[in-house]
């Protein structure tokens, strides 16, 4: 059993757990993007950053890849973490402002502007598709190519892959290959429409059941939720 401290609380982790897994076990939420439970970890998006160590030795690490260690002191919501996370979202948004997933993250974490050049690319190089193809679909049809600013995801020689079975797994998992959210300011970089919705539907219901899927998910169903409306009634009574 590994003993570490997360946000001042003593936590026990199993051998082989990461900080993220430990935090999840204790119900602490750390946002992730390139992490998926069914896939190996990659540590590319830096959204899951947490601060470890103390004083001048404190540093940011990606919790999805950092193993839980004995005596580790972890803070998941310091100013530094929050600011860096916002920066990562802002950067990703400048690359792929059309992604619903990234727009939602922006809304959720209060990113209100994009100060970088909008690149409108189709990929944020999270590597989810590559891992999906290799690890779940047994495909190995796509992968990273080149390096530096030329890095991209493609098939060998950029032609139709001989081993791709067209299963669509890569598209299913890609956070960018989606419809843009239809906010009121849909042509600016940050739409933030979800910020003005009460409550933000995004965390509550299953994509598959929402018939408003193509229209950008209105959130009405969440407001109708009995539990919630009970709570509302109670609060109005009081």
């Amino acid at each position, binding site marked *: 059993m590994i003993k570490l401290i997360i946000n001042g609380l003593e936590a026990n982790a199993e051998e082989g757990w990461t900080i993220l897994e430990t935090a999840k076990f204790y119900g602490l939420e750390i946002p992730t993007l390139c992490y998926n439970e069914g896939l190996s970890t990659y540590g590319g998006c830096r959204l899951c950053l947490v601060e470890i160590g103390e004083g001048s030795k404190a540093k940011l690490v990606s919790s999805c890849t950092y193993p839980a260690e004995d005596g580790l002191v972890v803070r998941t919501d310091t100013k530094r973490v929050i600011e860096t996370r916002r920066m990562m979202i802002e950067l990703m948004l400048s690359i792929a402002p059309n992604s619903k997933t990234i727009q939602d993250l922006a809304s959720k974490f209060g990113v209100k502007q994009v100060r970088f050049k909008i690149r409108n690319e189709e990929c944020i190089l999270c590597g989810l598709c590559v891992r999906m193809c290799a690890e779940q679909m047994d495909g190995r049809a796509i992968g990273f*190519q080149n390096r530096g600013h030329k890095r991209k995801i493609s098939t060998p020689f950029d032609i139709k892959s001989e081993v791709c079975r067209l299963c669509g797994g890569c598209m299913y998992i890609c956070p960018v290959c989606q419809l843009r959210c239809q906010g009121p300011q849909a042509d600016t970089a940050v739409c933030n429409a979800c910020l003005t919705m009460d409550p933000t539907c995004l965390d509550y219901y299953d994509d598959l059941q929402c018939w408003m899927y193509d229209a950008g998910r209105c959130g009405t169903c969440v407001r109708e939720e009995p539990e919630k409306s009970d709570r509302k009634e109670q609060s109005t009574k009081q």
Partner: protein
Amino acid sequence: MEAQEIKIKSYITKYNNEKKALISILQDIQEEYNYLPQEALKIVSETLDIPLIDIVGVATFYRAFSLEPRGKHLITVCTGTACHVRGGPKILEKFEDMLNIKAGNTTPDAQFTLETVACLGCCAIGPVVVVDTNYYAQTTIRNVDSILKRHRKEEKENEAN
């Protein structure tokens, strides 16, 4: 095709069919053909049992490998910081003009491939131009013509012999 396959397999057996020798094998193939032919990579993939995409990933990661046929001579112009301030980009421009191609491309007669590099580690003698294994120090725009001539001439001499 048969002969090519046998040759490529021989490069692989040279390293006892070991996966970890991938880069060495690719280097040998690159040396032989001047680039990495698609067919060759497929043979390597099958023989070593490494997914083709991973081999392509390695081949595109390193600048030393090329998936496109390269010219007989490889001209590399340094545009690293030190060479940049000493006029590297001007020299590159001159090469582009003289060869009538852009950096990264090969002349239609397949004689020259023009590339840039960001620092060769010998900034003191910049601006540096490398043609195959010959280093040219403190190059100026005026040298460009003679450098090209020298390699064209060598070419002819070799042919005559």
